[in-house]
Each structure stands twice: as structure tokens, then as C-alpha cells.
């Protein structure tokens, strides 16, 4: 089983890194021929950095749109971020001080993350408009996060796993010095779902994470009169006549 998971996690990481690099590269290389920032648009690059920060850290636009979706969505993402940071301890030795300090918060973040997912799922099921636009994959994505959170919480609060061995396994993967993974259904479920998540990342709506940084309506400075903006393919038209 340890070998299977080792192969799976290598594969998942490879798909994630290569797939994501491929997508991000495609976004970066596709030109944005016209200036299309949406109001309120800052005039300067510094302003764009601030706007993007507010968008990514606080979901500013979503806040304007719908308080429920914002609250649940932000709770989920902020919790997920904390949980991810907490998990750093499985990949570093010795554990950095700040990673040690956030451990207790990270534990409870697992619970709030679950609440966020449940709330978002409830919204998807019970709000007529959101139900209408949902595809099976939208539901499955939430199910995936739910299984990940539940299996993780089980190991934290109910059926404890030998985390020292888990860490040994992870470090072993990183340094190509393979170790044994403790036998635990919850752990198997947890790792399997995380691997699935990594692999579907580059081909699913999870691309919203890198996508937001490339959204022309959010990342362009509003200075079209001051600076000529022209894409290579559009410039070509000028030499044709």
C-alpha cells in the first residue's frame, strides 16, 4: 500500500505541476488586445496590485454581490489556507516556529472549512438559481472537499493516526528514501482524495485560482489614453494597409 500511495502522490504532483504550468503559460502568452478593466479601475500598476490583493484576500467583488456566498466562500477559503499552512509541518524538519504556532488554529480551521463547504453545498442545493447553473462536477467538487475535511478531522479528533510515521513517509517521498505509510482507512481516503484534487486542478474550475490573476478586467491599469496598448497580432494589421 505504501508503494501504491508513493506512486500515486508522485503522479498527482507531476500532473498538478506540469498541468498548471501549462495552463498558466497559456494564459500568460495569450494577448489581451484591448483595455477592458471594469470600474472601479485604478490608473496605476500600484493600484492594480492593491485591487488584486483586495480581490484575492477579501473577495471584494463577491462581497458586493452576495453576503451569504461571500461569507461562506471566504470562511471556506480562509480555513483551507490555514489548514494548508498547518500541513507544512509534514514536509519540513525542523518545523518552523510560525508553523508550530498556528497548529491549534489549523485544527479548528478544519471544522470551519467543513462548515463552509456544507453551507456552499446547501446554497447549491436549495437556491433555485444556483441549482439551475450547477453541473454534476460542481457537486462532486464539494463532495471531494468534504471527504478530505472529514477524513482529516477524523484523524485529528477521533481515530488518531501515527503522524510521526506519516511525516516520515512524506519526507521520504521528498528525499527519495521511501518509508512505510501507517495503515489507516481515514488516511488512505484523505491522501487519495488529495491526489484526485491535485490531478483535476489543471482541467477543472479550480483554475479560478490562477485565473483571477490573469483576468484583464481586474489586472489592467486604466490608462488607455496615456499609453498606447497594442497586441502583436493587432499591430500586424497596421502594416497590412
Amino acid at each position, binding site marked *: 500500500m505504501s508503494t501504491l500511495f508513493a506512486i500515486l502522490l508522485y503522479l498527482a504532483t507531476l500532473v498538478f505541476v506540469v498541468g498548471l504550468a501549462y495552463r498558466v503559460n497559456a494564459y500568460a502568452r495569450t494577448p489581451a488586445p484591448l483595455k477592458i478593466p471594469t*470600474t472601479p*479601475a485604478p490608473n496605476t500598476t500600484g493600484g492594480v496590485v492593491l485591487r488584486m490583493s483586495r480581490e484575492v484576500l477579501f473577495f471584494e467583488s463577491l462581497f458586493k454581490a452576495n453576503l451569504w456566498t461571500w461569507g461562506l466562500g471566504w470562511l471556506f477559503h480562509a480555513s483551507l489556507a490555514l489548514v494548508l499552512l498547518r500541513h507544512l509541518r509534514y514536509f519540513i524538519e525542523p518545523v518552523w516556529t510560525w508553523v508550530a504556532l498556528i497548529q491549534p488554529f489549523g485544527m479548528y480551521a478544519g471544522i470551519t472549512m467543513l462548515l463552509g463547504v456544507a453551507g456552499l453545498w446547501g446554497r447549491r442545493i436549495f437556491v433555485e*438559481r444556483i441549482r439551475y447553473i450547477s453541473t454534476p462536477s460542481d457537486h*462532486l467538487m464539494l463532495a471531494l472537499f468534504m471527504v478530505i475535511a472529514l477524513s482529516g478531522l477524523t484523524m485529528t479528533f477521533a481515530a488518531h493516526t501515527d503522524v510521526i510515521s506519516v511525516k516520515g513517509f512524506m519526507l521520504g517521498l521528498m528525499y527519495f528514501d521511501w518509508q512505510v505509510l501507517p495503515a489507516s482507512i481515514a488516511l488512505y481516503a484523505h491522501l487519495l482524495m488529495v491526489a484526485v484534487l491535485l490531478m483535476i486542478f489543471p482541467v477543472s*474550475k479550480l483554475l479560478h485560482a490562477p*485565473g483571477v490573476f490573469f483576468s484583464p478586467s481586474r489586472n489592467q491599469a486604466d490608462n488607455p*489614453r496615456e499609453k498606447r496598448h497594442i*497586441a502583436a497580432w493587432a499591430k500586424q494589421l497596421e502594416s497590412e494597409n
Partner: protein
Amino acid sequence: MADIAAPAYRVIPIIPVLKPGAMEGKGPFIASDKIQEAIGFPGQLVEDWHDRAIAKMGDLLGKYRSLKVYMDACVHCGACSDKCHYFIGTQDPKNMPVARQDLMRSVYRRYFTWPGKLFPWLVGARDLTREVLDEWHNYFHQCSECRRCSVFCPYGIDTAEVTMAAREILDSVGYGQKYSNEIIGKVHKIGNNLGLPAPALRDTLEGLEEDVKEATGIDVRFPMDVKGAEVLLITPSADFFAEPHIDSLIGYAKVFHATGTSWTLSSMSSEAANFGMFIGNYEQLRKIALRIRQAALELGVKRIVVGECGHAWRVAYSFWNTLSGVGDGADETDQFAMMLQKQLDHRYKQPMHICEFTWDMIGQGALSFDKEANDKHIITFHDSCNVARGSSMGGYPGGQFDIPRNIIKAVANNFVEMSPATTHERTFCCGGGGGVLTDDLLDLRVKGALPRMEVLQQVKDEHGVNFMACICAICKAQFTKVMPIYGFDRKMVGGVHQLVSNAIKLGAK
């Protein structure tokens, strides 16, 4: 058309329940082969439309980062789902911005992503069938490209970009919209959307000079094709003859007169509107914009000022520098742009909105007003979508909101705001923008006006508002048509420069 009625106001502006299929149909009139071929599109739906449409989509995905990112990034969160005026007015779920995008996203997933190729049912992917193509023609002409959804989207996904791409694909397979494509043909042939030839235009302008002389006793000129004039005015052609548009044209002329600015119109380039944007075709967008460049070069003007027109201002402000070099900051080596930019006077923004021009002049004390002349009006201001969400004024964020309001307050005493949930960047489209201002879509236009009409009714009841000012030719035309259906007087709508015209003091200063 007699059976078109206004939908009832919502008691509280609640989110409407869904009525699937409410706006199913054939969509707007299809462009004839003559109209299509005149602007380089296939005359009729081509035999191999399926392959060509998919190839075109691939082409656009490679040319527009917006489309590429927007096809991938949506998470179906529903933030946009209650933001579209057409959804609110029609209750058709396919008019929710996310559902409208999904009409294309479903096809994108099927042909351009692995999950869609392998498990279409899982990710809502579908083949591009004739039914899907017809659905595109119908629902992508129920979007006014107003970008309200984009304001609220956590990733800034702009349905306008998707609509433009869809229309571009439809045109490329010979399935165009009559209204927009016919108008584009007229601009190329005659120089303006309305098809007014130069002699007719000259007659109209002379008539206006006489009218103003009669009303004020002052010789206000409406010059055309004057070489060496300081300012070239590019204004929507509706300003030359439509009501209430023409009153704003008179307003611009009076401002130029009172400030002693030498200015001119161009008979060759007598149109600010650019329907190339509506159909999402870069070549048309560019070609129409180049007429203005040509006029500016031929007339040798130092400044280009744009009249009251929403999408025209978006094209002018955001796109002209890119398309035709009207602007500043081109590379020294960029000969195409430098040719024009060397001629223009960069002490002023290029191009400049007529509101920026007037407000600057007010700031310099060059204009004086008899505000009482507007006392019969209790005025509110409707932010036009393309000005509000696709451009700016004054060189600072939000200038496009302040400047027209500042002008109104400088020329009139009674000004009232509508509900803040419906102004500034949250403004609702008039219901007629983006290429749907045609009688074959009147039902849609009436329903799409609902959210604006509701809040107008509110300020009418609470404050006695009897004049809604705006700075968009399409808004003016749309409102004069649909407001009577909601029980308002059509004369309630007018331009900001109509108010300027009423109050400006000419001659003695």
C-alpha cells in the same frame, strides 16, 4: 407590437423566480446575404458551419486572454446570477450571466478540454448542434454587453466578452444579426449609422443655425469640414436629427461658441458610434475607428472631442489609442500612431469627452449660466453602462460619475440621485444597448428596462423628478421608446448638454 406590455414593478426588488423558456425564440432578424457580404461575412449559414465555428472559437481563444481565462475560471458561484437587467425583467434563467456564458462554456468544454471530451455529462459539456447555434443567436442577442455582471464577479468575468465572441463566431459562419450588421455597412458606405449623406447633413446644420439664431438672437455656428479647426467633434449621428439628442448637439455648439473654441464636424466621419464593438469583430471595430483618424489627419485638428454616446465613449476612451492612435504615449518607433500623436495637442487628454471639455471650461470660469432656466426640471442622472463600467473621465477613477453630475449641478438647481444600488458602477442598462436597439427586440427592450424604471418611479413619487439626464444616444432612444409603455412622459429623457443649452449665457459675459 401592440401587445407588448411593461412587466409589473416588484414590490421590493426581490430576486425573481425562474421561468425557464420565457424568452425562447428565434432571436433578432437575421442579416440578409447582401448585408453580410458587404462587410465581409458569408451571406448565409455555410455548409460546414460546425467545423468553422469550432475553428473560429479556437482562433478567438488564442487571440483574447479574456475569453480564454473566462471560459476556465467560472466556479458557478452565482454571484452574477441576479445582476442582469434582462434576467430581472424576463425571469428566463438563460439570461442569468453565468447561464448565458455557459451556452458557450458548454461547447468550449466539449471541444477544448479533456474532461469535456471524456465525460461531457459530468461537466455540462455539449456538442455544437444546430439547436445550440440557434440558442446562441437568440440568447447572445439578449445581452447588452453592459458589464454589470463583471463588477460583481469574484474573477471579473465579463459576459460582454463572451457575447462578443459568440456574435463573432455567428457572423463568421453566416448567421449575423440584421440590425448591427446593416448599420456597420452604412458607416462604411456613407460615414454614419443613419445613412445621412453630406448634403443632408449640411442642410440639417444650417437649419440648426437658424433655429438657434431665432431662439437666442446669437449666431452660433455648426461648422463642417473646416480645415485647421482646433477641435474635431465626433458625435453619434442620432445627435443630428433625433429627439432629444439634437438638443445636446445644440448644447455642444453653444459651449464651443461661448468659449471661443474653433471646432468642426466631419462629413466623412460623422459618427461616434462603433457597432464593431457590439459584434466583437476587431477588424470592423478598427476599420470604423480609422475613419476618425483619417478625418483628424485630413482636417489637421489639434484635439478630438466626443459627444454624448455611451459605447462610443468606451471605444474612444479605452480603444481608440489602440485601434487608431488617437491618444498619447505611443513608442517613438510606432510610426502609425506617432503620425497622429505628433499632430495632437497633449496639453489636453486625447480624446476628450464633451463633458470633460465643458467641465474644464466651467472650472476656468469661461462659461456662465442662468440656472433658473432649468428650474422647471427636477433632475436625476442615469449612468450609462459603457461610460460607468468601461471608461472614465477626468483622469482619475470615478471621474465619469462626478463630471456629468458636476455639470448638472452647475447648470441647474434641482438634482436628486436614484437608489445607490442602481447608479455609478452598479447602474442598470437602459435595456437597449449593445446592438439590441431594434424593434424586432422591443419585447426584450421593454422587459430589460424594468430595474431602471422601478427606481425612476421611486424618485418621481418621492421627489417629483421629471427629467432623467443621460449621456448616451442609445439610452436616449431606448428610453423615449419604452418609457411611455411604463407610463412616463417620453420628454422626461434628455442629455446633460440639453440642460447646459437651456442655461448657458451666450454673448455678453
